[in-house]
C-alpha cells in the first residue's frame, strides 16, 4: 500500500472516530438544554428570556445528532469506496507488471484490454471518491455552522443568566457547558475537514 492510499484510509477512518466524539458532545448539549429548561422553569419570570433559548439549544443538539448520523452512513460508504479503489489500483498495477513481464510472449497483446478496463474503473473510483468527499465536506460544514450558532446562543444565555438573580450561577453553568461543547464539536469537525480537504474536487 502506498502512502497516498494509507493516508486516504486514515482520513476516512478518522471521520468516524472524530464524529463519534461529536455525537457524545451533542448528547451532552441536549442534556444541558433539558437541565436549563428545568432551572428556567423554577426561576419563572426571572429567567423569562432564558426559556426560548433552552428550546433552541435543544433543537440545535437534535439537528446536530441527526446530521452526524447521516454523515456516519456516508463515511461508511466512503470507506467502502476507498477499499474498492485500493483493490482496483492494486489490480491495475499488477496488470501493468504482467505486461512488462510478458514482453515477447505470443499473446502479450491480449493483456491490453484488461489493462485499459482496469484503468477506466480505477479512474472512475478516484473521481467518485473526490465527488463524495466534496459532498461530505459540505455536510461537515453544516455541522460547523450549528456549532457556531450554539456558541452565539451560549453568549446570549450568559447575558440572560445575569438577570436571573439567585439562578445566575446555575444558568451560567449551562451557558458554559453549551459553549464548551460547541467548541469541541467545532474543533473535531475542523480536524475531519482538514484531513479530507486534500482529496476534494479542485
Amino acid at each position, binding site marked *: 500500500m502506498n502512502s497516498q492510499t494509507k493516508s486516504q484510509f486514515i482520513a476516512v477512518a478518522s471521520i468516524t472516530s472524530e464524529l463519534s466524539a461529536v455525537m457524545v458532545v451533542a448528547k451532552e448539549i441536549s442534556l444541558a438544554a433539558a437541565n436549563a429548561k428545568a432551572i428556567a422553569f423554577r426561576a419563572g419570570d426571572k429567567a423569562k428570556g432564558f426559556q426560548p433559548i433552552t428550546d433552541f439549544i435543544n433543537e440545535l443538539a437534535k439537528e446536530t445528532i441527526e446530521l452526524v448520523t447521516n454523515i456516519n452512513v456516508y463515511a461508511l460508504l466512503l470507506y467502502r469506496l476507498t477499499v474498492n479503489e485500493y*483493490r482496483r489500483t492494486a489490480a491495475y498495477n499488477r496488470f501493468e507488471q504482467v505486461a512488462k513481464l510478458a514482453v515477447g510472449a505470443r499473446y502479450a497483446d*491480449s493483456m491490453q484490454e*484488461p489493462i485499459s478496463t482496469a484503468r477506466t474503473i480505477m479512474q472512475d473510483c478516484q473521481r467518485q471518491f473526490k465527488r463524495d468527499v466534496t459532498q461530505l465536506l459540505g455536510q461537515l460544514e453544516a455541522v460547523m455552522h450549528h456549532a457556531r450558532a450554539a456558541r452565539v446562543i451560549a453568549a446570549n444565555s450568559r447575558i440572560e443568566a445575569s438577570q436571573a438573580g439567585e439562578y445566575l450561577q446555575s444558568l451560567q453553568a449551562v451557558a458554559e457547558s453549551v459553549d464548551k461543547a460547541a467548541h469541541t464539536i467545532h474543533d473535531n469537525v475542523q480536524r475531519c475537514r482538514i484531513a479530507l480537504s486534500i482529496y476534494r474536487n479542485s
Partner: protein
Amino acid sequence: MKMTKIYEGAHQWIMFGRDENKPDNIIDSNQYIVRTANKCLLLEPGGTELFAPMMAAVLHHAPVEQITDLFASHQDPDVISSLGLWDQALSNAKLHAPALWEGYIRHFGCESIQYVPIPDNGETIKIESVELQIIPAHYLHSPCGFHVYDPQAKILMCGSVGSAFEAPGAPVFVERFDVHVEKMRYYHQRMMPSNQAKRAWVDRVRNLDIDILAPQHGRMFKGDDVKRFLDWFDSLQVGTGI
C-alpha cells in the same frame, strides 16, 4: 517462471514453477494449465505474489480471453489467493472449487468469476472435448480437497499430496526417489491428518492409469516413481502432530 510441457496430444499440459523472482519468504508452488484449442484451464492458480509472473507466463500459451476456467484443489492462500486479481482480469471465467469452501474462498474476491462448487463426491468437468475427473481427496491435507485426473494424458494433479519443498532451481521431476523421500516425509506426516483418508486415496488412485503425478509443491513423479510414491505413502504413518 519456468515452463515445462508435460503432455502434448490433442491438448497440452504445461507446468509452471520455480519462479526466480519469487520473494524468498513465500513457498514455491507449481501451477498447471490444460490448454485446448480455444480454452485454457488453470490448475492451482497460486498466491497473490505469483499472479503477475504466472499470468505473463500463461500469455506464452493462451490469450487472456481464452483463460476460461480455474481450478483450486482447496482453500489455502498459496493455491488461490490470487483469485481477486484473476477476477478483475478475466471477463468470462469459472472457478471450479470445493463447495464446502465457497464462502471462504470468496474472501479472496470473486465477483465476475462464476464459482462452480464441486460436490463432496467429485464430478467430471469438460474443457472443450477434454474430460477431466475431479477426484475427492478429503483430509489430504485440507478437510475438503480434490485432485484432477486426465485419463487421456494420464496425469493426476494431486494437490498437496506428493508435495516437497525444494531449493530454488530444483529439477521439475524426481530423479532419485530414495533421496526425494526425505524431502517429503515431515510434510506428509505433519500435514496429512488421517491414515484412513490416506488409505482410501491410495486405493482409489491405484486404480488409475497414471504416467505423471503432479503435486502443487516440489517435483513431479513419472514412470516407476508413481508406484514408488504410492507404496511409500501407503506405508507412512501420518497425523503425527498430536
